[in-house]
């Protein structure tokens, strides 16, 4: 057995909640990564995965709110989470700056998620010892 070492992770989520299982599988994995003593450098939402960062999701009270559960984990462990700006704008996920730029009536990005470019993903590829993707299933 190799001796345990501390690794760093970037998690990429490309599947949406309430359509795919990706955000919940990713959350369970993230909790296990942290429990094992490793570090999560960042979470990157891409494609349909950006819907995880919508503050407006209102699932029935007997179903999990994945945005809220992810938000709690990210905040507790101070993990940066970024939604890809190109994916977000097309799909109607806006922060106040993009709301103003596109003159839209509202913003709907949940805290602590942020909006940024694919450069954040490239940085994850370069810096983290592991990059794990959580795609939409089928």
């Amino acid at each position: 057995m190799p001796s345990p070492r501390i690794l760093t992770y970037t998690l990429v989520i490309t599947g949406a909640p309430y359509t795919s299982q990706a955000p919940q599988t990713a959350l369970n994995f993230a909790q296990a990564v942290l429990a094992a003593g490793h570090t999560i450098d960042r979470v990157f939402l891409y494609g349909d995965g950006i819907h995880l960062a919508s503050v407006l999701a209102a699932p029935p009270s007997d179903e999990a709110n994945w945005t809220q559960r992810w938000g709690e984990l990210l905040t507790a462990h101070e993990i940066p989470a970024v939604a890809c700006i190109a994916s977000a704008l097309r799909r109607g996920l806006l922060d106040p700056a993009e709301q103003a730029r596109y003159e839209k009536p509202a913003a709907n990005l949940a805290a602590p998620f942020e909006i940024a470019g694919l450069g954040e993903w490239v940085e994850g590829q370069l810096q983290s010892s592991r990059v794990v993707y959580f795609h939409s299933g089928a």
Partner: protein
Amino acid sequence: MTTLIIIDQPPYGNWAGREGLDMAFSLAAFDQPVALLFTGAGVNWLRQGQQAELIAQKNVDRNLSAATVFGVDQLLADSTSLTRFGLAPVDLLAGVETVRFEPALLSSYSHVVCP
């Protein structure tokens, strides 16, 4: 005027199957005749002993077991798909009728929806 809803997606990994079930139960709630046909990986909705709460989702097997009580006329399952996934009658929820997926089966339904 019966509507047949075809479920060909497996449970829990994506929402297409579940949204098809909601359509079926909705027709039944409005007293419209409706049948469900499970085929391909979709037959896994019919497996006994599901514990979806372990992945923070809702079990549907209770709803499906009671489907005919709620007004769903038939729960059909394609025999080839059942064999493929190792599902014998004893493994299935109660009330499932085994059929063969073929044009003749579909032809008796006025609407066919494959969500």
